[in-house]
């Protein structure tokens, strides 16, 4: 049976590649922080040696839209292309290819039926920056097969906070019941307060610094009552119109169960800080 060896919570900052691929002398403070974070995650991967990576992330209206909107969809391919043309245009993001673990995908979908999740699935999925950037951060060689689990954090009605907590429990059971991988890392892609296409989009300060601080406390200390109560559409909208991707962090908080918290940080940058978490299974270290 598969073991979850680590759970990583990370930003999918779309300018990650553009900021970090400059010559050393031209790196900004943001870029240095992002590279430091990448090195930290890579060191964790080196310790825990995953042979599959489950990525929990949100599609940004690249493949799913209101005409046919899944709340939770599992990719089920043997390989994935990453990045869409409008992300190349806007972010200078590289087009990438990732191997998939199709058997693990199928195991997760089938286990979902027993775990209270009838997952949608896709055999024709392309990954946007929410999966590509965490992959570049965690495994720049892109050589470990992935299973993308995409959540709806952008098209209301959006599932409740409780549902995202339950998703973590269900995914943990599904992964641990699979024999299609031995050592699984789960990379959860999300944010704290955030605004895209709204009034605070380009500003140098956090959209809501108080929420960022509270949210880190709730996540680190697994305060699920607060996490669920504060994760309604109306509450999250007060922290920016893209704060809904915080919901993925609830999945991280429930999924890490009794693992050791190795690192937790709200990484400073221009704009709202980025959540950075590393949990490792002690025996795996």
């Amino acid at each position: 049976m598969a073991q979850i060896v680590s759970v990583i919570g990370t930003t999918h900052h779309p300018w990650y590649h553009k900021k970090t691929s400059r010559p050393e002398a031209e790196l900004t403070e943001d870029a240095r922080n992002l590279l430091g974070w990448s090195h930290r995650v890579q060191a964790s991967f080196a310790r825990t040696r995953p042979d599959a990576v489950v990525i929990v992330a949100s599609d940004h209206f690249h493949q799913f839209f209101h005409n046919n909107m899944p709340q939770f969809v599992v990719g089920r391919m043997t390989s994935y292309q990453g990045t869409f043309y409008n992300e190349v245009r806007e972010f200078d993001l590289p087009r990438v290819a990732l191997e998939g673990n199709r058997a693990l995908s199928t195991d997760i979908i089938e286990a979902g039926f027993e775990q209270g999740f009838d997952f949608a699935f896709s055999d024709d999925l392309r990954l946007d920056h929410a999966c590509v950037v965490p992959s570049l951060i965690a495994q720049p060689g892109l050589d470990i097969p992935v299973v993308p689990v995409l959540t709806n954090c952008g098209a209301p009605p959006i599932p409740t906070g409780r549902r995202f907590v339950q998703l973590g429990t269900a995914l943990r059971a599904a992964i641990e019941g699979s024999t299609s991988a031995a050592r699984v890392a789960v990379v959860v892609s999300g944010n704290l307060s955030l605004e895209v296409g709204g009034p605070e989009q380009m500003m140098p300060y956090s959209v809501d610094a108080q929420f960022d601080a509270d949210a880190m406390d709730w996540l680190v200390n697994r305060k699920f009552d607060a996490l669920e109560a504060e994760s309604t559409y109306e509450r999250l909208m007060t922290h920016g119109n893209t704060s809904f991707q915080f919901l993925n962090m609830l999945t991280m908080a429930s999924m890490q169960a009794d693992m050791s918290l190795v690192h937790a940080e709200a990484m400073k940058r221009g704009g709202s800080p980025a959540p950075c978490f590393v949990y490792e299974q002690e025996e795996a270290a």
Partner: protein
Amino acid sequence: MPEQSTAQPAGPVTDGIPGYDHYAVNKFLYDTDRNPDLVARYVEDPVAYVDWYVEHRLSRLLDNESEASSVAPLDDTTRTALATYDFAALYASGAHPFVLWTLMLPVIEAKLASGEFEAPLAPDGARLENRAPMAYYRERILPHGRPYFRY
């Protein structure tokens, strides 16, 4: 660079137009932005493109153009806003801010480059990436706060 907001939030969360069905306008924004040829046509001639889109594409199912869609048509106000790049009006009415911004970015970029749109003044400390189009966009949506986009 300030570490915390020095300003109050730009406006309250507002209601957009409660109960208004935004599917048609969001479909236009999403479907156009994901196709570089359609973006180029919208930049080149918005009036002709909106006419064409409504007649030939809005009326068809997404991802199955051989079948008609019963999607509610665009009302005249929204159609005019799309044809005149009046994104502030679309934003205020509750069009989805993500797909709205994502399509308006290449439009504003092109129009700033051609001189058709006047170069904006970016706020102090503002993000460097896409700075000019973001500032142009921000100036115009700012009075409308942060509308709900759930309807």
